[in-house]
């Protein structure tokens, strides 16, 4: 209630900046105070709510204005459902959002954010991944928590960004630039300080003593150089440690910063007192290695993210919409279901749709990993993100925005990457406990040395603090998993549950489904028999003529059959039954037997057994022919089983189909164990039988029909793309639809587990060996700094081995400034 410290009416209550017409009001106890922005309002109210409102009465200077006040105002905009709809993904029971979090540095940060967000009412699930700098937040549907989540993250000192295409790249760029600058300062500073330190060390080695004036001079210069290294290059660590203190949590940076600040204060004191040791060399070297590690970590994080971002950034910003008889350019997000768009040759399909005019080839490599263009005709579906490599097509939009296959793939990839496997959660908990032990131990060590040899107490304490930082331990598993998830995504395999990789590495029995898995689900004509007065060839030609104009999948089976001059007129397609048409004055029907029989007045009593795989041809007088259809085997199905056998895994075929069909497929795929006519319940029983025999079973299906069996298997894999992705209940999804990839995925999983194991063993060994050595005074602080950083670098580099050696250099850059400029100059 002190008039002097309460802000003047035109100034913000919290930061004393001009209000500039702000309408924000903070409730401090029973008073209302004008504040300049939502940030100040939140901070002020938070301080008041924790019973610290006295602070405002006692403070002598205004509080710092919270950073990024403008973006806090922007978050207010996320309350608006129209704006939020761009970022929020609606589910049946819950809404979710993906966030990019700047300044997210370690798993302790991730843990802090998780804990804070979970405390917000209605927030159902929070997954924060420090390795990827991303968060996935879910909340009960209909409760608009979006802006509250953003605020909560910002209050902790992090900058949240909802994931959209351009923010990702801008944030990456800013993070990278600021990290590089810090790294440069640390490098130059470290070199300078080491130069002066080496002079002292070499004198000591020769049992000489450096001139006292010169030594004092060197120390002063080292101090001057260390200041920017510690407080500029090391600022992220110090800030993180401060945030940890404020929220009473223990993070990696707390022990690091304690060591740095203690060493700096002691060295500064000794410099001016002109006695004792200085540790400027250790400080600068430690900051140098820490910045180096963080820079590598940042690069790995950006690199693994680039796969998802390459997908997300791929949609064109504008589309050509057909409006009446003219074409207008509209923003892609303004497209609505039912719109007609023109996709010119060489451009990207802006939304999912069906071709209503034109035949072209599309490059779908982004979605499926398939590098060859595929042919798409009128009536075919096209997926957003495909590149039209052929003729212009006219497309009717069937799905937009979040519902497109591209969005589904990206969302699934992100969710998988943000999902934290149990192994990592356990490692995080272990690291947090270990850190507490280290902090306490460092003081114990210091106390013990004070009795033994007070001169060495401080150095030993510093070494313990530095050497024991379990950074490497807590990034061991996430680094390996992030790298392999990215690598698999590049091969057209999406990992929806990273835990699955661990199980997958132990798989010794793979069960394949037939239809849609080993076979393509496309229909092909296997056999035909003439039953009436016409010859085989004549019947086939008539059938081909009738099916010519039909878009039904069955018609595709007759696509390459010559019509021998027969032309069908008045063709009518009866969905679910067949096709009727007139050829040379005679009416014909082709389709299911009952449909064909009614044409000749027969109510359906035919000698043929009705089957999905048999269709018949008939006219008004008689039944002419029957056609047996079958699925087409996928191109690489035959490689799957032999490859699996070569790595010691049994393959088995379980199908609901008839024995003959299953046996053929099994023979052609070289699968030795197969069973036909299995109901889902029988398939389930088979999985349980294998499991009780001690097998770890992986099931490969199409993800929709065999969902319960997939759920029962230890690991489930599904072929699928497009809309099917959203409902597919599988741990891994083969977007490229290549059964032969199964063996490769298992190999990658085994490698991932092996690498994660190596990482864990290495980092744990390092921490447990180094700690006692440091406590006993064998490790000087600068050696500790090298050791700690080297172990983190080792873990990161080891994980990087999972990534391919070369980036697809061009994939993320749509246009090329230099080339574009050159073209303009030459044209």
């Amino acid at each position: 209630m002190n008039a002097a410290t309460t802000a003047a009416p035109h100034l913000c209550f919290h930061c004393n900046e001009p209000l500039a017409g702000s309408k924000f009001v903070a409730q401090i106890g029973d008073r209302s105070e004008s504040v300049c922005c939502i940030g100040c309002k939140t901070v002020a109210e938070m301080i008041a709510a924790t019973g610290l409102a006295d602070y405002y009465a006692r403070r002598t200077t205004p509080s710092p204005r919270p950073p990024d006040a403008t973006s806090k105002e922007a978050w207010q905009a996320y309350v608006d459902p129209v704006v939020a709809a761009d970022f929020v993904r609606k589910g049946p029971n819950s809404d979710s959002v993906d966030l990019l979090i700047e300044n997210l540095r370690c798993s302790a940060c991730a843990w802090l954010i998780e804990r804070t967000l979970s405390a917000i009412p209605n927030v159902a699930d929070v997954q924060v991944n420090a390795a990827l700098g991303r968060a996935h937040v879910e909340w009960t549907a209909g409760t608009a928590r979006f802006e509250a989540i953003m605020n909560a993250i910002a209050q902790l000192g992090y900058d949240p960004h909802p994931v959209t295409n351009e923010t990702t790249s801008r944030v990456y760029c800013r993070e990278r630039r600021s990290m590089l600058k810090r790294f440069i300062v640390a490098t130059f500073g470290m070199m300078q300080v080491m130069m002066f330190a080496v002079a002292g060390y070499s004198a000591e080695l020769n049992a000489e003593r450096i001139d006292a004036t010169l030594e004092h001079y060197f120390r002063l210069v080292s101090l001057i150089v260390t200041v920017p290294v510690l407080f500029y290059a090391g600022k992220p660590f110090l800030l993180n440690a401060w945030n940890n203190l404020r929220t009473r949590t223990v993070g990696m940076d707390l022990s690091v910063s304690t060591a740095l600040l203690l060493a700096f204060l002691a060295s500064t004191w000794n410099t001016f007192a002109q006695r004792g040791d200085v540790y400027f060399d250790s400080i600068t070297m430690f900051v140098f290695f820490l910045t180096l590690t963080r820079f590598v970590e940042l690069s790995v994080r950006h690199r693994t993210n680039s796969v998802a971002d390459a997908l997300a950034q791929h949609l064109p910003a504008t589309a050509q919409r057909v409006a009446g008889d003219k074409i207008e350019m509209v923003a892609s997000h303004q497209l609505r279901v039912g719109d007609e768009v023109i996709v010119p040759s060489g451009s990207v399909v802006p939304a999912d749709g069906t071709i209503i005019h034109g035949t072209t080839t599309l490059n779908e490599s982004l979605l499926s990993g398939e590098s060859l263009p595929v042919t798409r005709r009128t009536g075919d579906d096209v997926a957003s993100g495909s590149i039209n490599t052929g003729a212009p097509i006219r497309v009717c939009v069937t799905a937009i925005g979040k519902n497109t296959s591209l969005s589904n793939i990206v969302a699934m990839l992100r969710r998988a990457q943000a999902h934290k496997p149990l192994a990592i959660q356990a490692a995080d908990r272990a690291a947090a406990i270990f850190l507490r032990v280290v902090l306490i131990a460092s003081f114990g060590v210091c106390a013990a040395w004070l009795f033994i040899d007070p001169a060495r107490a401080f150095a030993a304490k510093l070494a313990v603090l530095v050497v024991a930082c379990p950074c490497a331990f807590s990034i061991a598993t996430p680094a390996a998993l992030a790298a392999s998830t990215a690598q698999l995504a590049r091969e057209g395999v999406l990992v929806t549950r990273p835990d699955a990789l661990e199980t997958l590495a132990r798989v010794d029995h793979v069960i394949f489904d037939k239809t849609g898995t080993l076979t393509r689900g496309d229909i092909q004509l296997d056999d035909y028999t003439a039953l009436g007065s016409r010859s085989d060839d004549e019947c086939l030609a008539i059938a081909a003529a009738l099916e010519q104009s039909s878009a039904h999948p069955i018609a595709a089976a007759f696509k390459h059959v010559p019509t021998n001059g027969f032309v069908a007129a008045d063709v009518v397609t009866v969905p679910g039954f067949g096709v009727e048409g007139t050829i040379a004055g005679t009416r014909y029907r082709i389709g299911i037997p009952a449909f064909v029989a009614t044409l000749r007045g027969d109510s359906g009593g035919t000698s043929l057994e009705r089957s999905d795989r048999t269709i018949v041809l008939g006219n008004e007088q008689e039944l002419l022919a029957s056609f047996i259809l079958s699925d087409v085997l996928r191109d690489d199905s035959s490689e799957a089983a032999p490859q699996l056998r070569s790595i010691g895994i049994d393959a088995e075929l379980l199908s609901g189909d008839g024995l003959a069909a299953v046996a053929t497929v099994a023979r052609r795929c070289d699968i030795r164990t197969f069973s036909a006519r299995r109901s889902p319940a029988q398939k389930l029983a088979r999985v349980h039988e294998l499991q009780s025999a001690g097998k770890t079973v992986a099931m490969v299906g199409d993800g929709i029909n065999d969902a319960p069996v997939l759920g029962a298997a230890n690991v489930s894999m599904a072929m699928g793309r497009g809309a099917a992705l959203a409902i597919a209940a599988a741990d891994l999804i083969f977007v490229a639809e290549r059964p032969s990839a199964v063996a490769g995925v298992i190999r990658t999983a085994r490698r991932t587990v092996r690498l994660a194991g190596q990482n864990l063993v290495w980092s744990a060994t390092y921490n447990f060996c180094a700690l006692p050595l440091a406590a006993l005074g064998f490790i000087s602080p600068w050696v500790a700094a090298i050791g700690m950083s080297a172990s983190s670098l080792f873990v990161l580099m080891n994980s990087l081995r999972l990534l391919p050696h070369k980036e697809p250099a061009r994939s993320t850059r749509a246009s090329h400034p230099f080339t574009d400029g050159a073209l303009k100059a030459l044209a």
Partner: protein
Amino acid sequence: MDILFVLIPLSLVLVAGGCWAFFWAVDSGQFDDLDSPGWDAIEASEAATAVNLSGSSSGPTV
């Protein structure tokens, strides 16, 4: 060794200058993408050839 009292501050000035030059390079985006600029030369000449070819069929290029 009195010369050190001049040379060391001089070296610090040089280091500061080096840092400034690096900061300037980073801020002007020279370190943003270290992979793809290597490809620029190749693609630019290919594009130039393509334009020249199309240009020679339709008329003289500028």
